[in-house]
């Protein structure tokens, strides 16, 4: 099982709980119930503590995330530069509300309150790449590029 490999990598030590969960999240794009149970069992921790950590951090998800993660900053600086309109454009193009994942598990659309780079706002993070000075016009291109990448992978 993959989870066991990850736990072995960290020597099965409790202090690496978050690192282990991060790796599981990276691999599976969410934290499956079985994985959390296995982690708790291997680290000798109560399941409720592992569950508490998994639900505390927004980087972890208990439901499957999309292949492409789009995060729109709606912090103050981005907001005054029109991030609301950009978010709406993403919602329209992708077809889900903020905080949701498409049914085909292609996209997850999230909002964030600040990314710390207000100077280049409005900021949108697509698959960990920061896109500064975002406009509604660029949204279509980004979404299409993600969709094409998925098609190339599939073929």
């Amino acid at each position, binding site marked *: 099982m993959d989870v066991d490999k990850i736990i072995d990598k960290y020597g099965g030590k409790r202090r690496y709980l978050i690192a282990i969960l991060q790796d599981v999240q990276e691999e599976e794009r969410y934290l499956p119930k079985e994985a959390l149970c296995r982690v708790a069992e291997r680290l000798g921790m109560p*399941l*409720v503590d592992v569950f508490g950590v998994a639900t505390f*951090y927004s980087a972890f998800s208990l439901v499957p995330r999309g292949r492409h993660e789009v995060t729109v900053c709606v912090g103050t600086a981005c907001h005054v530069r029109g991030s609301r309109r950009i978010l709406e454009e993403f919602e329209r193009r992708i077809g889900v509300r903020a905080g949701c994942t498409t049914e085909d598990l292609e996209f997850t659309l999230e909002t964030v309150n600040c990314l710390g780079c207000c100077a280049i706002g409005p900021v949108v993070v697509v698959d960990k790449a920061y896109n500064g000075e975002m406009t509604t016009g660029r949204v279509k291109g980004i979404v299409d590029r993600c969709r094409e990448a998925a098609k190339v992978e599939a073929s």
Partner: protein
Amino acid sequence: MITLKINGIDVAVEKGTTLLEAAKFYGINLPTLCHDDGLTPYGACRLCVVEIGTGDRTQLVSACTYPAEQGLVVRTHSRRVTDVRRMMIEMYLATCPSSKTIQDLASKWGVSRCRFEVKHEDCVLCGLCVRMCAQQMDGRAIGFVGRGKNRRITTPFDEKSDVCRLCGGCMYICPACQSRCQGPQERSPICNACVACEPPCLVPWDDMKCYMDPCVWCEQETKRKLLAESKVQE
């Protein structure tokens, strides 16, 4: 032994004693929601706040987590402490008006209004049940889940836990799930049944005046004052 001053009296306690334990040992009762003698201190409810230090440089700390220090000057019922405490009780009332424990606190501290939007939560996140489960029952079936306003206490995945033995310890210790007096109730967050009772301390003094619990001196003082006022009106 460590010597310190609580409400003007010199007291001596063992090293490692918390201010709450010290006060309790000397007969000064502090209100708490999240403290239990058999569980580790947690400092969640903040109702046990006391004022430490002298002069202009006093600060408020939670007595249940603050260890007694040599020469510390502690005031448990100063005006500042009382104001803060009453404000917190008012907020607890808004969170959980259906709890008898909180209603009793409110009437004891003379909190007669609630200016916040009433939420009717069934939990004040004091963490007593979580510690009870882990420390006394060796269960570890429930814990805090989520963060911020979504923080709540539950079992993993909200399912019945394999390690829960249904001992009921969590419900036994919960300060929020005991329902309030079932007297004639107005549509108000303040329990109606206690409105007629006179709160023991209506006047916030700068320091505790006596060590009776409830403080009788100020009650008599209040009565005397009320009597004088009524005479003036006559």
